[in-house]
């Protein structure tokens, strides 16, 4: 029997099922929608199988084509990568279950194929150990996402898709330029190998590739001036896709930045600027979300804000900061993913995305509303939900070596948290206490859709009430990243 603890399977299994969907789409018709569920169920199994290995060795490396890196592409899963890919698989799984009941528009087989590909690409971005492979994964994700954003083919979806496409492809080009610069400088494409060879480069020589890569990944990762596509694209996409885009895509892109920054670009001067980016992202995201009437747009802006928050924590460049960033990533992925799924079911029932039309849903869709409240609370960072622990950690970390700027940043972060609370509570009170003017027959979402929500909600609740394992795990992961264990481990385990 084949050893399941192989990160490459995380990518290959969904790809296999993608092509299987394409193959069987013509005769299985709507039966293909069950294939993604199987694919991600398998992915979850693989991720779980990887856990003992990763905990034991700190990292699992899988090479391709029978050659050793740097001559072949390798997939390297460290602690955090594993955690994120587990979340990606989980989110993919629940979203594909959700899709069974959610997607009724044609062409279904294309949708499911692209959906599978999207999640596969995101997992790929997380676990790849080769920088050009990262670009390929980036493009797989982007192009799958372009198609999915335009899936509804209405005015808004097309416009959003097009904007996303133009910005995404510019970003892709910049990312490629950055990669090429690194290649020109080092002659190799393996991340660890590059990291070994960039140590003798000047700051300038490292800064430019970094800027290019940062721009490219920043577009996907929703960093402030580069994120203009996001508030358009997330609402336009079907909700399950929004859930993935919001829950995993930003996280994956930021994770990629974090990893590259901590391996290849080993410099400290840049973090101040990253912090400014993060704060701008936070401010614009949260403030804009406050003014939204469209619920998915609001959540999309909130995603920007959350991204700003964990990017800020990352840019502290300390173990604690990174730990906070990772915790917030997990929190954001689960909560925001869940929120989009919940909201999708609500929009289906209400037939509108306007928040005012959601009035009174709290009484009619009890389970959905309950989980929406939990997700919102976790995002706001109210105890005893997981967001509280992560926010606690981030603020503690930010004040660790406090200077005036950091204190000001903390004030801004907390102010923006207040803004976040303002709009989420507005939403909640409309839902629970608003009066519905229109007389629409609203039922609870179907059990299948609720299933996915409940699964995510339960996971969130479990890590909320029993956060110690996650916190400790994240602490180790952060310590490994800061201590550049990625490189040493990769060298030890034959990643090079």
């Amino acid at each position, binding site marked *: 029997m084949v050893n399941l603890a192989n990160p490459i399977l995380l990518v290959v299994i969904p790809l296999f099922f993608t092509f299987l969907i394409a193959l069987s789409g013509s005769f299985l018709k709507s039966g293909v929608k069950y294939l993604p569920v199987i694919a991600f169920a398998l992915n979850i199994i693989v991720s779980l199988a990887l856990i003992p290995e990763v905990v034991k060795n700190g990292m699992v490396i899988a090479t391709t084509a029978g050659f050793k890196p740097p001559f072949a592409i390798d997939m390297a899963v460290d602690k955090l990568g594993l955690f994120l890919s587990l979340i990606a698989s989980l989110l993919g799984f629940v979203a594909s279950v959700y899709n069974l009941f959610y997607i009724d528009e044609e062409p279904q087989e294309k949708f499911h194929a692209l959906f599978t590909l999207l999640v596969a690409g995101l997992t790929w971005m997380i676990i790849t150990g080769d920088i050009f492979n990262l670009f390929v994964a980036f493009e797989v994700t982007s192009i799958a996402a372009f198609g999915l954003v335009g899936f509804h083919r209405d005015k808004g979806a097309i416009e959003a898709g*097009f*904007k996303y496409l*133009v*910005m995404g492809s510019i970003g892709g080009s*910049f990312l490629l330029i950055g990669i090429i610069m690194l290649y020109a400088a080092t002659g190799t494409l393996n991340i660890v190998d590059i990291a070994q060879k960039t140590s003798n480069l*000047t*700051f*300038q020589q490292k*800064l*430019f590739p970094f*800027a*290019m890569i*940062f*721009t490219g990944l*920043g*577009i996907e990762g929703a960093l402030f*001036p*580069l994120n*203009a*596509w996001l*508030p*358009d694209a997330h609402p336009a996409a079907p909700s399950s896709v929004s859930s993935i885009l919001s829950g995993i895509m930003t996280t994956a892109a930021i994770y990629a930045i974090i990893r590259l920054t901590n391996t290849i670009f080993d410099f400290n001067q*840049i973090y*101040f*600027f990253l912090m400014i980016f993060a704060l701008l992202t936070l401010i*614009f995201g949260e*403030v*804009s979300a*406050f003014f939204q009437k469209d619920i998915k747009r609001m959540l999309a802006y909130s995603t920007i804000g959350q991204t700003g928050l964990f990017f800020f924590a990352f840019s502290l460049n300390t173990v604690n900061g990174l730990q906070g960033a990772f915790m917030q990533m997990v929190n954001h992925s689960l909560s925001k993913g869940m929120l989009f799924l919940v909201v999708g079911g609500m929009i289906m029932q209400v037939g509108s995305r306007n928040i005012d039309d959601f009035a009174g849903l709290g*009484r009619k869709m009890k389970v959905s509303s309950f989980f929406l409240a939990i997700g919102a609370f976790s995002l*706001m960072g*109210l*105890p*005893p939900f997981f967001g*509280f*622990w992560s926010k*606690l*950690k981030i*603020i*503690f970390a930010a*004040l*660790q070596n*406090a200077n005036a700027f950091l*204190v000001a940043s*903390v*004030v801004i972060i*907390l*102010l923006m*948290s*207040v803004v976040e609370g*303002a709009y989420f*509570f*507005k939403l909640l*009170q409309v839902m*629970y*206490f608003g*009066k519905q003017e229109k007389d629409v027959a609203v039922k609870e979402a179907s059990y299948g859709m609720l299933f996915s929500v409940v699964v995510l909600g339960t996971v969130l609740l479990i890590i909320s009430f029993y*956060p*110690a394992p996650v*916190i400790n795990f994240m602490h180790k992961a952060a310590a490994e990243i800061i201590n550049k264990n990625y490189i040493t481990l990769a060298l030890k385990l034959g990643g090079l």
Partner: protein
Amino acid sequence: MNILLEIMLATPFIGGLLAFIGGKVHRWVRFAVAVTFSFLTLIEAFVYYNVTIKGVVWGSLFGSKLILQTNPISWLFLFIVTAMSFLIVIFSIGDMEEDRIKLDSYYMQLLFVEGAMIGIVLAGDLITFFMFWEIMSWTSYFLIIYGGKKSVAAGYKYIIMSIIGAYSMFIAIAMLYVKAHSLVYADVATTLAHSSATFVVWTVVLLGIGFFVKAAIMPLHTWLPDAHSEAPSPVSPLLSGVLIKMGAYGLFIVLYGFLSVQLAGNIMPSVFSTPILLYIIQWLAALSIVLATFLAIMQEDAKRLLAYSSISQIGYVVLGIATGTSLGVAGGLFHALNHAIFKGLLFLAVGAVIYRTGTRNLSDLGGLVKKMPYTFTALLLGIIALAGVPPLNGFVSKWMIYEALLQKKEVFLLIMAFIGSTGAFLYVYRLIHSIFLGQLPKKYENVKDVPILMQVPIWVLAVSTIIFGIFPGLAMNVIVKGMKLFGFKPIAYTLFGFPQGTAMGALKVINISAVLAIAFVAAWVLFLILSKSRKVSQYDNYAAGQVVTPELKYNYSFGFYMSFGRVIKSILKLGIERIYNYWVDAAKIFGDYYMRRVYTGNLETYNSYIVIVVTIAAAAILLGGKLW
């Protein structure tokens, strides 16, 4: 015994969940569960009477231990929380009937709030404290907005201000954590003892903002009038009687658990032999006493009146706690207990009136004394206690605070405190007059007194006002013992009052009440000896020759203190809320303006952002890798 702390903390949460689940079966199951569990909590609280337990570790986070503890001071607040919650649960059964409001999660939220507050008082470290503080904020938010449409706006304001306050605390806690890497109270105290004055001041100020928002000290009080008045009747006493005390408790812990008067005096200048920080807190408290009193006098809404009164009374609590002398602090703590009792009583009594009449607009009511005599009597006791008139409990604690201020010669604060008390006399009279006295409107002719389940909590509290008024020693027992732990000199007290030497004068409430009772009986006997009087209808009245008919509203209740309003017009115009609204609006316009200029919807603009980012990087490289 120590494990009971955790059980105690868990009891209300479990009870809440069970009440929610049980409510699916039948509503009486829900009532039964809620009553049982709130009673259990009360029993568990009594186990800790006069017990000090230090440091039960129940977890650990980020290298800081999570600790539960109890001492007589926290027991005092624990007692307030559990006892009030129990009474409110009972009252709610009568007040919140199934058909009036949908109840499915009401008891769950009520018990959750109780649990959160128990968590706050039992906390032995700041993380636990802060966690339960936040839980308290949002659970009570849901309780507030149970009241319907208007209460939603009030709840919104409440939760936003709570979050702001909580985050202010958060910064301070983070600063402490970073400095000490442990947030256990003892460690925090040691840290502060070895810190610079700036650090201490910042910590106390930031923590204080959080507490002041909860305690509704001006100028952070604006959520309270709306929230307290719009919340459902049984929730208002919880908010007013208990929840805002958490701010006072927090302040006490910070000022005397972390700092001490000596330490504060060492690192900062003193005014009137009070460290300046405490002095500023005292002034804020005094300002809230006076201004809130003025505002309360002008209210037309019974619960709003009581809400402003709460601001004013919590001002006394904070004023007392911030004096820093044994007498003052004891007075402040005692007043916290007393205020919980009489304000809970008043809110419940007003709730009972609302229950029967459906309105809380003072000018719509009147003459109910004939219909609801028991409620009237309870409310009368409540207002006497609130106005600080002997021999009820409010007087004793206020007296202690006055004496403490007088001892320290902080005369301006003392004047303000006195004024607040006299003003209280005005508004409480207005309350009882407009509801119970005067002409009985025709529509309320068939009003009955409230059911027994609602009477019981009201009367328990009413009797408590007398008990704690005549026997202040009962509470002093706990308070003095607890304060010893915090390094205060114990004050001399007896069961009935304070002997000569404790303050600048003596007090023996039992004598006052005894003489009053004798005088009353004597006068009454004289009254009865004289020929009997004959009862006449309320329409048999002097009306300058006119005939008073039931259709005519022959009652002076709207704008009761209108002429006084003219005197304080200029003060009323000073709207703190308006200033807040102005800034919030400005921020909104600002945010909207910039958002519209960033997310224009124009792809060209978006693309140029990307180019600009790259250009900045490129320029940096051209400039030789320098980024600034």
